[in-house]
C-alpha cells in the first residue's frame, strides 16, 4: 500500500512497512548512522539517525521506525541536529584522543561524523577505564577503548558468519564486547575471518599488523624478500589508487612490488592451479573408491577452522590439500628459490591476502612442527596499500613490468579462486579433463557466478552427473550441512568461502561494505578469465614442469607429504 507523507515540508510517497530511513535513502536525504547495516535488521543502538516526527514527543530512530500515513518528519531541524551532536559528543567523551595515531585515521566513520556535525571541542570528559588491547589472536587485534558498542561486529559474527564468537558482556556502563571469561579473541569459536573488521565504524577492530616485520625484511641485506599475492589483489589495488582495472594492472602491480624491494614476485594463483590438480585427482580417487562425499574444498582457512573446531564429524569430507598460500610458500622456499641458489632460511616469503585468517593459518602451519614457516609474514591488502604509500610508489608513473620468467604463469582457473564459486568452476574444468580426456565445453559455468550466497550447478562429465554447491557467508553453510546430514540430496562437491561472495569481500580488503565495489572486483576476475589464453589448471606449463622435476604424479604419497595436511580435530567450544 502506498501513501504520502511529509518530509521536510515536501510530499513524498512511502510504502507501508518501510522504515523512515528507507524513504529518506530513496529520496536522497542522508541521515548519519553508526550502527545501521544494509540487509540486517536494525537495532537502533547508536541513535544517530534520530528524526523529529510531529505528534511524537521524543525523537525517533529513523532506521527502525516504520512510516505511517499521518507523518510529518523533520530530518535536520535544529532540535535533531542538536541531539545528534550531543549523542556524538557523549560517544566521544570516553573515546581516546589519538586519531593521528590510529590505524583507521582517515577511514573512520566516527571521525567523518565528528567532522560532519562540526564537533570542535571535547565537551564532556570521563575518566576512561584502562583497558588492554587484545592481541591474543594472530589475525585480529581489538582495542576496547575505541569501541562505541554499536554491535555491528556481533551481528556480522552471528548472522553472516554464524559462529557467534563475541557478544556484549556485562551491563550498563560496564558493558563491553568480548568473549567468554574474557579470554580474548583467540578462542576456538572465532574463525578469524575478519568480517568484524570490515564493519567496525571505528578503529576498535583491526588486523594484527605485520607491516613492520615486512619493512624490516626489505631493509635487511642478508634477506631475500619475495612476495606472493592473492588473485583479488590487482583489482583492489586498482580501486585504491584509482587506476583502471585493465589488463596492464597486473604488470603495473609487479613493477610496484619490485620497486618496493621484493626480489621476486609470484602470483598465488599459480599455486591455486596446483591445488586444483591435486584436488581434482583426489576427488576422482574418492569417487572411485566410494569414499565419503561430498568433498569439501579447503582453500578458505576460516571454513577449515570451522570444521576442525565446530563440526569435526566432517573432517573426513574436507580435502586434505593445503591452501594455495601455504603451497606457494613451500614451493618458493623449497624449490624455486633454492634452484636460483638461495638458502631457504634467507628467503623471506611475504604473502598479500584479502584475509585475516591467512595470518592465523601461516602461523599454525609448520613443516614437521619445526620453526621454519612456509610463509614468514602475511599482510592484508590494506597493509600493502600502506606500504606503497609509505615508500612513495607513484602508480601513475609506473611502467608495466614483464612477468618473471619462471613461475608466474597461471591459468585463469587459479585466478577464479578470488570469488565464491570460482574455485569450483576451476576444479570442474580439471576434473572433466582428468575423467574424460577432453576439455569441458563451454568452460564457463554460469550457475556458479554472480553475487549470490548459494550457487548450485549440475555438471555432466562423461556419463557421470556431478552436483556441486558453492556457499559463501559461513552462516549459510548450516542449512547445507543439515541437508547433507539428512541425506536429502546427492551432492558431490561443496565449496565454502566464509566471507560473503568470497575473497573479493574478505576481511583484509578495504573496509566499508559497498556492493558496487564488490561487483567491480568480481568483474575484474571474470574479465581475466575471458581474456586469458590458458583457462584450465592442467594446461599451465608450470604444472608439467613441477610434476616432472619436483613432485610425483598428482595425489601420490610424495605430494601428500609436501602439499597435503592431516586435519586434526580442534577443541570444541
Amino acid at each position, binding site marked *: 500500500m502506498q501513501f504520502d507523507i511529509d518530509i521536510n515540508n515536501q510530499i513524498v510517497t512511502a510504502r507501508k512497512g518501510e522504515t523512515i530511513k528507507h524513504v529518506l535513502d530513496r529520496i536522497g536525504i542522508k541521515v548519519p548512522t553508526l550502527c545501521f547495516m544494509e540487509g540486517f535488521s536494525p537495532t537502533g543502538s547508536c541513535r544517530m539517525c534520530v528524526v523529529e516526527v510531529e505528534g511524537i514527543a521524543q525523537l525517533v530512530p529513523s532506521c527502525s521506525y516504520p512510516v505511517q500515513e499521518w507523518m510529518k518528519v523533520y530530518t535536520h531541524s535544529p532540535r535533531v541536529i542538536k541531539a545528534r551532536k550531543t549523542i556524538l559528543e557523549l560517544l566521544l567523551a570516553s573515546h581516546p584522543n589519538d586519531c593521528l595515531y590510529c590505524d583507521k585515521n582517515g577511514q573512520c566513520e566516527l571521525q567523518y561524523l565528528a567532522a560532519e556535525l562540526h564537533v570542535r571541542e571535547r565537551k564532556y570528559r570521563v575518566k576512561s577505564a584502562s583497558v588492554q588491547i587484545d592481541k591474543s589472536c594472530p589475525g585480529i587485534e581489538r582495542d576496547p577503548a575505541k569501541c562505541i558498542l554499536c554491535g555491528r561486529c556481533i551481528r556480522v559474527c552471528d548472522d553472516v558468519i554464524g559462529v557467534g*564468537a563475541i557478544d556484549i558482556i556485562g551491563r550498563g556502563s560496564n558493558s563491553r564486547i568480548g568473549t567468554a571469561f574474557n579470554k580474548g579473541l583467540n578462542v576456538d569459536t572465532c574463525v578469524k575471518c575478519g568480517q568484524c573488521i570490515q564493519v567496525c565504524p571505528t578503529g576498535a577492530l583491526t588486523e594484527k599488523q605485520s607491516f613492520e616485520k615486512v619493512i624490516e625484511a626489505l631493509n635487511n641485506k642478508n634477506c631475500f624478500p619475495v612476495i606472493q599475492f592473492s588473485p583479488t589483489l590487482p583489482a583492489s589495488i586498482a580501486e585504491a589508487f584509482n587506476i583502471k582495472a585493465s589488463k596492464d594492472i597486473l604488470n603495473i602491480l609487479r613493477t610496484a612490488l619490485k620497486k618496493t624491494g621484493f626480489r621476486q614476485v609470484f602470483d598465488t594463483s599459480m599455486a591455486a592451479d596446483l591445488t586444483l590438480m591435486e584436488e581434482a585427482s583426489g576427488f576422482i580417487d574418492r569417487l572411485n573408491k566410494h569414499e565419503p562425499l561430498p568433498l569439501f574444498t579447503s582453500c578458505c582457512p576460516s571454513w577449515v577452522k570451522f570444521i576442525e573446531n565446530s563440526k569435526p564429524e566432517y573432517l573426513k569430507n574436507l580435502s586434505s590439500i593445503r591452501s594455495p598460500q601455504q603451497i606457494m610458500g613451500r614451493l618458493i622456499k623449497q624449490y624455486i628459490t633454492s634452484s636460483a641458489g638461495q638458502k631457504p632460511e634467507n628467503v623471506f616469503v611475504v604473502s598479500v591476502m584479502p584475509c585475516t585468517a591467512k595470518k592465523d593459518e601461516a602461523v599454525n602451519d609448520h613443516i614437521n612442527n619445526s620453526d621454519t614457516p612456509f610463509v614468514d609474514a602475511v599482510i592484508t591488502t590494506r597493509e600493502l596499500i600502506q606500504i606503497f604509500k609509505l615508500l612513495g610508489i607513484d602508480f601513475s608513473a609506473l611502467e608495466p613490468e614483464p612477468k618473471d620468467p619462471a613461475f608466474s604463469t597461471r591459468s585463469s582457473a587459479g585466478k577464479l579462486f578470488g570469488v565464491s564459486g570460482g574455485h569450483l568452476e576451476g576444479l570442474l574444468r580439471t576434473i572433466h579433463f582428468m575423467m574424460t580426456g577432453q576439455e569441458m565445453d563451454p568452460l564457463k559455468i554460469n550457475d556458479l557466478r554472480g553475487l549470490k550466497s548459494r550457487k548450485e550447478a549440475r555438471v555432466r562429465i562423461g556419463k557421470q552427473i556431478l552436483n556441486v554447491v558453492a556457499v559463501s557467508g559461513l552462516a549459510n553453510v548450516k542449512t547445507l550441512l543439515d541437508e547433507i546430514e539428512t541425506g536429502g540430496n546427492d551432492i558431490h562437491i561443496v565449496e565454502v568461502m566464509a566471507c560473503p561472495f568470497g575473497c573479493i569481500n574478505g576481511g583484509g580488503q578495504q573496509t566499508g561494505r559497498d556492493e558496487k565495489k564488490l561487483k567491480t572486483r568480481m568483474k575484474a576476475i571474470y574479465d581475466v578469465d575471458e581474456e586469458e589464453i590458458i583457462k584450465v589448471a592442467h594446461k599451465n606449463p608450470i604444472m608439467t614442469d613441477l610434476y616432472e622435476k619436483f613432485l610425483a604424479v598428482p595425489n601420490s604419497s610424495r605430494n601428500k607429504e609436501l602439499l597435503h595436511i592431516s586435519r586434526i580435530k580442534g577443541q570444541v567450544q
Partner: protein
Amino acid sequence: MDELVSRILSKYPPDKKEGLLPILQEIQAENGFLTEEILSGVSGHLNLPVNKIYGVAAFYNQFCFHPRGRYHFQLCHGTSCHLFGSSTLLGELEKHLKIKAGNVSRDGKFSLEVVACMGACSQAPVIRVNETWHTHITPEALCKIIRSFKDKKE
C-alpha cells in the same frame, strides 16, 4: 561434565534455547557459581555458542563466576538506598569485612556485592545476607549484624 550439571541438563530438551535461563538459575542455585566447564556443557546441550551464554550470564547479577563467601552480603545501591546513606554503609562493610566490593574474604567466609535496586525502597537502606533481609540499616546496626556473623561458630 559434572554429575550435577548433567542431571539438571537432562530435565531440559536439547537445542531449545528458551531453557537457558532456568538451566543457569538451577546450576547457580545448586553449585553456587558458574564455571567455564559448566557453560561449555550447557552450550553443547542447547547448541548455543559459549560466548552467547556468557553474555547472558554476565548481564544478570544473580549469576557469578567464582565461589561466593558462606555469608554473601548484598548492599543495595538503588536511588532510595543511596539517599539514605548506602555509600556510608559500603565504607563500613568494606572496613569491617576487610574486603572490597566484589571480593571474597580469604577464609571464604564473607563476600560483598553492591547491587542495583532490590525493590524495597520503602525500607531503605537495605542489605541482604544470603536469604535474610535487613532493613532501615544504620551504621551501628550494620556493625552489630557483621559482629553476629563473625562470632558465629561454624
